[in-house]
């Protein structure tokens, strides 16, 4: 121990800790503390009213029997379906804007605008467009694609899918830019050499572009997967989980239990369960990825 402190004083370590202390204090307070403190909190019935008591694993038992919580988990899981759609469409967009024609930068910018605007604004606009008497229904019924207007966001069969569509629409530009960076990192000589050797366009895409794009696909899939499982803003603004529990996601349910029902203990327990599940999921993904021999970083 003495040795450690002696070395601590002389080495770079003391300076290093001096540099990091302010940031680490903040991170400890607002990132690590929530994780640590939610464990004891989850074992109590802490709420704004009544006496706080230790309740053991009651909250966890309750969670497993809570139909709304199970529904919210399933909905969050179902939300993941948006991930492959995001990848396919944003790769398509990236290929489009990777061409070297006049005004291409303008298109890139236009596609990116939804990313920088707030979800409040975006959700408001789409809420109107998708209303029963809104523009989307008007266009779709007049073109003849639908007979009757659909109440996209207040029909329990379509609400979750409609939210997924809005999530996708807002994110496309972001993933497009990342894929564009990936496409531009593909060396031109490589594809040209393949063409000279007699490979056709489809072959070069399959054998050269896609393998080189793999780390980008991994990155975007991971990011959009996490975002999909954690989805909150669009649900909160547009449907509040309704109709019924049709669009109740786990993040929203954790929030509702905490800030609307003020069951802080129960909310913490739900948060822990979801965190552990996401953690396990990301470990699986990383393992899976390493097996494939691709190094994303």
């Amino acid at each position: 121990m003495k040795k450690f402190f002696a070395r601590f004083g002389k080495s770079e370590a003391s300076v290093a800790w001096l540099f990091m202390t302010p940031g680490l204090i903040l991170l400890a307070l607002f990132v690590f503390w929530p994780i640590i403190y939610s464990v004891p909190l989850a074992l109590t019935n802490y709420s704004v009213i009544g006496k706080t008591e230790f309740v053991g694993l009651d909250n966890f038992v309750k969670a497993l029997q809570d139909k709304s919580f199970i529904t919210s988990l399933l909905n969050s899981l179902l939300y993941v379906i948006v991930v492959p759609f995001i990848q396919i469409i944003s790769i398509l967009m990236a290929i489009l804007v990777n061409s070297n024609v006049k005004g291409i930068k303008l298109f890139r910018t236009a596609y990116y605008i939804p990313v920088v605007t707030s979800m409040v604004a975006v959700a408001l606009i789409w809420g109107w467009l998708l209303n029963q008497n809104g523009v989307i229904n008007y266009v779709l019924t007049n073109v003849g694609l639908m007979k009757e207007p659909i109440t996209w966001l207040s029909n329990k069969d379509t609400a979750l899918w409609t939210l997924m569509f809005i999530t996708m629409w807002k994110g496309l530009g972001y993933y497009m830019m990342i894929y564009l960076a990936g496409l531009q990192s593909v060396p031109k000589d490589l594809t040209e050499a393949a063409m000279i050797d007699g490979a056709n366009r489809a072959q070069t895409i399959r054998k050269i572009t896609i393998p080189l794009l793999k780390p980008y696909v991994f990155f975007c899939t991971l990011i959009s997967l996490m975002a999909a499982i954690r989805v909150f803003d669009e649900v909160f603004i547009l449907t509040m989980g309704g109709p019924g529990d049709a669009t109740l996601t786990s993040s929203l349910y954790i929030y509702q239990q905490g800030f609307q029902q003020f069951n802080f203990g129960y909310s913490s327990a739900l948060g822990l369960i979801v965190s552990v599940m996401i953690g396990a999921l990301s470990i699986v993904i990383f393992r899976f990825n390493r097996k494939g021999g691709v190094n994303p970083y």
Partner: protein
Amino acid sequence: MRKKPLRFVKLLLLYGALILFAIFMMGPFLWILSVSLMPGKNVFSSPPAILPTFIDFDNFVQVWNYMDFPRYLMNTVIIALMGVVMNIFFSCLTAYPLAVFRFKGRDLIFTLLVATMIIPAAAGMVVNYLTVKALGLMGGFLAVVLPSAVTVFNVFLMRQAFMGMPHELRDSGKVDGAGEFRIWLQLALPIVKPAIAVIGLLEFMAMWNSFLWPMIVLNDTKQYPIASALSFLNGQFSYNFGWIAAGTVISVIPIIIVFLCTQKYYMEGVSGAVKG
């Protein structure tokens, strides 16, 4: 001779696809703009008013007079700037030793930090609320900014940037007798300027668009930033489409302008984050 018309058709198809996507991505914004410019016109009118048939700024004037927009915009700018300055300062300080120093526990700290990125945001919100309350910050801008004053993601980005700094630079600073802090300030920071610009922009946008946390920790709606105010306006006047449309346009325009002016750095940062 056969190649030319083929190339023309290809170009036509390309532009067709580009324009189609542009309508898809920009259409909703153009529609809300045209709705906001036509007072009295219902958003649910049939046929829908996609292009403005007349232009009138009444909605903007009325909603501007009703809601104290300068104040909300000012709140937003203050909150966003606080967030930007704190994030740049703290993540530059924290990331520097993680990138260039050699000391015990460095890798452990870094691994711990990165591992926290998987925790769902809603899970930490309850405890952060209790913490902010215990610190006596409730109802102030500091309560809005402090929980995200330094993010793991930004520390990660800055660490990548500092790792690109040549070793000789620090040694030459030491030879000249500069202390570690001066080396950081005068030699290291100028090199990572692009990364600083990127986290500054990302934070500015994140703070500009955040609406929920401010609503949780601020008691007075007069303190709301613009996104929270818009959400509040929508709750109050969901029937007054013109006003909400105008409010939406007012809230969206500044951040789009910021993006347009800085997109060069911003785009580099977004794509650079993957390579890092």
